[in-house]
């Protein structure tokens, strides 16, 4: 459990500097744990070498599931289970089924995709985020480098690389075991007994 506990963080305030810094750091064969930004920075995912998001595919699959369910539902209810003549139209009158099929396609695609996103990124109301630097949701970009994963370089070397590439500050950030596996209940208890500044995952 040594991994993912000891980090060094570089603070940037300009996203252009950040982008070139990320490229420089990765060229030196240093693995970046993650970058935290207050707003989406274009091409950051390319600079970090992430694969394109596969959310569109998820949306498409959920969408066709929705279409299929809608058509099956309407055909089975009005065409098979209890056929009725309505407005002189056939029992299974396809044009009339289009609106509901469309709506259900959108409903399934939207909810399926957002659900997938929440699941994949582990977003949930009772999650306690591991915050590297509180300013990353305000005005600073934070580059976090795992010291253990980059153990071929010393902390000083990493610090100077970050500084060379334009970081305004370089800090260290250590998490304990209980920080890494924070329990929401414990977090709430801590929050209310010790106040905002000290909780199971301090946010300073």
């Amino acid at each position, binding site marked *: 459990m040594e991994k993912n506990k000891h980090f060094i963080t570089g603070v940037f*305030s300009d*996203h252009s500097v950040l982008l070139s810094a990320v490229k420089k750091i990765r060229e030196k064969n240093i693995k970046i744990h*993650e*970058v*935290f*930004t*207050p*707003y*989406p*920075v*274009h091409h*950051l*995912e390319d600079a*970090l070498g*992430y694969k394109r*998001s596969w*959310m*569109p595919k998820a*949306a498409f699959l959920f969408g066709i599931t929705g279409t299929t369910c809608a058509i099956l539902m309407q055909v089975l*209810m*009005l065409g098979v*289970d*209890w056929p009725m003549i*309505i*407005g002189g139209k056939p029992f299974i009158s396809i044009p*009339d089924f289009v*609106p*509901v099929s*469309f*709506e*259900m396609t*959108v*409903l399934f*695609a*939207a*909810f399926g*995709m*957002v659900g997938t*996103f*929440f699941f994949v*990124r*582990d*977003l*949930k*109301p*009772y*999650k*306690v*985020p*591991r915050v590297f630097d*509180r*300013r*990353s*949701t*305000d*005005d600073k970009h934070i580059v976090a480098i795992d010291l253990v994963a980059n153990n071929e370089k010393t902390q000083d070397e990493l610090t100077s690389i970050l500084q060379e590439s334009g970081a305004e500050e370089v800090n260290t950030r250590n998490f304990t075991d209980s920080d890494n596996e924070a329990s929401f209940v414990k977090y*709430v208890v801590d*929050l*209310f007994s010790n106040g*905002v500044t000290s909780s199971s995952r301090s946010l300073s």
Partner: protein
Amino acid sequence: MQIVSQVREPLVTGGKTYKDITEDICKPVEAKPNKSWLVAVTASIITLAAGGYFMGDMLWNGIGKWGLNKTVQWAWDITNFVWWVGIGHAGTLISAVLLLFRQKWRTSINRAAEAMTIFAVICAALWPVVHMGRPWLGAYWALPLPNTFGSLWVNFNSPLLWDVFAISTYFSVSLVFWFIGLIPDFATIRDRAKTKVSRLVYGMLSFGFDGSAKTWMHYESVSLILAGLSTPLVLSVHTIVSFDFATSVIPGWHTTIFPPYFVAGAIFSGFAMVLTLMLITRYVYNLQHYITLEHIELMNIIITVTGSIVGIAYITEFFIAWYSGVPYEQYAFINRMTGPYWWAYWSMMTCNVISPQLFYIKKIRTNIMMTFILSVIVNIGMWFERFVIIVTSLHRDYLPSSWVYFSPTIHDIMCYVFSFGLFFTLFFMFAKFFPVINMAEVKAVLKDSDSKVYKGRVTIPNNVVPDEDKVLT
């Protein structure tokens, strides 16, 4: 890096920094409610309660309390429904369609517009529910469950059922879209929180969002796909609302242009309502540097475009009614114009077609007072449009012996007032507890559109661009 041309106006003025954005938007959320907010909320709640008394009375005694009669069986209820749904189109339009068209100015208005959308859809959904007579049963009558749990199913051939699917899909997808947009901002408030309760509540609302690059990557993809889904969705909703009328054979209701024309009208009224609310919010929260004259002007242009589309649709309907040679169609339209409801027709024409044409004049579309007045006028006009379509087409039906003149009762009026109370109460709650501007998105466009980078609009009259602003040749 995105290159931005120098003829574009800045989206954020006043030399704001990233930090300033956080401060300016979070301040109203964190501060104690101010006096004007308290007055506004109290007024809304009083309106809600006053309307609520009549709404309750109507629910207790039945919809006989409304002025409906055997010829005009749909009047203010469905008018209000369509009007509110229409207003509920602008938010999704701004956040989805303008996102797809890369209109970056949407960033500072999309949050409030989406909130308004959701509240407007709630106010709209109220009408089909209360008109059911026993709304506590209506919840499952409208669902695809076998009737009385026997073997008869809901009628998928009915546009009213399509509406159930359309409105509920639209409401839930808009809510999700809005919430997705709020998550990063909730995280910002969480990380700044000074009190235990707000750290916990905003922390839970933020779903533990941490702004990591990987999350942002998926997040952006999700937003884009949601926009792609919402665009046809927003079109489909008002299309299906128009089907409620257009699938019938009533002259004045059955006309094929209804779907796109209703959609244009919805965007038209929705933008007007966004302007009405944003101009107030901008003033109360001092957001002049985020919602600039440029934003107001662009929204006015959209109002003019959609108003003109609606105008062309009116003329088309009128012309084709004559061209068709069908006497019933012809009568329905002559009756609209010159019959007992002539005043409603001409109010609609003046408010919807003529008044937005004033925005061709640059002085008017960049004048805040005029914009505010015209945005209210447009919404009055759009209410009359629905009233004209619905009541004037019904009040003289095929049997001249049943021709009547519809007059609203106090219950009609106060139930409508109730929906206003609901809308404004919800909106003011939103304006207090949620960030009214999407901080993350505004920050994302700040660098390319900072007023320090190029000149603010007030300094550039048409045609005169300073030499240093000219593009390299």
